[in-house]
């Protein structure tokens, strides 16, 4: 099963993983309290396309690789759309575990943040 792990502050897609054992019983407290974990039927390879960072400059001539980061986490999800209403109060409280979102994510919920550099 593929999971997107999102920042509870703004729904940024921080990480993704493929783990059939990731469930309410096995997920760590840290992952359940500090992230909103959303199931997707994407493959892990597809999910990685939504994980950051994103870059403005493709390459620089002074050998620095991709030079300027635009967003550390370029994609975000409106959590009010995907987290069940009865669980939304838990998003703002890092001491409470947020139940895993086990319904398949609608890809339309993945939104690319506008570039910060125009």
């Amino acid at each position, binding site marked *: 099963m593929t*999971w997107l*792990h999102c*920042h509870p502050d703004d729904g940024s897609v*921080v*990480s993704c*993983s*493929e*783990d059939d*054992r*990731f469930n309410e019983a*096995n997920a*760590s407290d*840290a*992952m359940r309290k*500090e*992230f909103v974990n959303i199931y997707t039927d994407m493959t*892990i390879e597809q999910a*990685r*396309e939504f*994980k*950051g*960072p994103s*870059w403005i400059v*493709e*390459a*620089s*001539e*002074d*050998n*620095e*690789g*991709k030079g300027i*980061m635009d967003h*550390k986490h370029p994609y975000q999800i409106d959590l009010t759309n995907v987290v069940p209403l009865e669980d939304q109060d838990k998003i703002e409280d890092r001491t409470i575990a947020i139940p895993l979102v086990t319904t398949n994510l609608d890809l339309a919920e993945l939104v690319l943040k506008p570039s910060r550099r125009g």
Partner: protein
Amino acid sequence: MAISSIGAGQTYPDLSAWETSKETSSEDEIAELHEDIDDSFIMTGWTNPQNITIRSNITGIKRTVTNDGSTNLLSFDDAKTLGLTLQDLILDGGNNMFASGVIIKAGVTALTVKRVKIHNVSAIFAGGLFITSGANPLVANATLENCIFVGGYNGIGVYQSTAMTAEIVNCIATKASGNGLAVANYAAQTYNFRNCLAFGNSPSQGDFDNSTTSTVNVLNCVSGDATATHLNHTSSAGSVTLKTDTSAYFTDYANDDYTLAQSGYDNWGIYGDSLTTPALDYASTARSNDDIGPYEFVPALLSLNARAPAKYMAAAIAMSPAS
């Protein structure tokens, strides 16, 4: 000091999740990889200065980080990072065009890299371990031991402009499209290459870079070209050059197996400096013969005979199971 476990079924699935979770931490942080992971990780936006360690959960057992996209594998871009230690890792860049294995763009006052292999990194504008230009990287002291750098623009590429002392010990840099071991050109920088190997890097740029202003000591090192004893080096004591028979030196040079086919002395006619040779090699094998490069040559027990040097006999006996 906090230790976090990384991997499926662990506290965090990958380093990206760990990094985000720890952004506001106020203590030194250690991430221990319990399995191989796919990740492209960037460290930035932390609240407090602290020391960071990323390592295998078992000393001597390598954990591989495979590039999961088109960016650098481990990227450090936070001026507040103090010490950074990387240990017992394999960083596989996946041959993405612009990816470095490790790139330091800001901070990191002390860098320690031990028993790390970086390979499949880009041949363009990137490298194995890269410290970018300008004054944002703050690496005052760097220690690299028993590391393997394969490919990339540079195996090690240093472009930082601020003061630095780097000890590069028992490493190998090979198959780079630029310098194998590139140094910056600033008077306040000192590079000590000890017991290192460099082969098969750009013929036009050379295995070992040279600098007219930095202090560059290349000691007990071996190059395939003439650069281990370049006249610009401050010292080249004990180093030898023009050693090109890589297929004889290593078990399988073409396929990136750099274990020694025979002793370093038999390969190149020199031993490493015993005072600076680390106690363990890349594979965490105890060193007994001060071989050059990341691996200590360990002769097969069956090949031991009266002609074997006494040092090898002692090493073999020490490794034998108790009877």
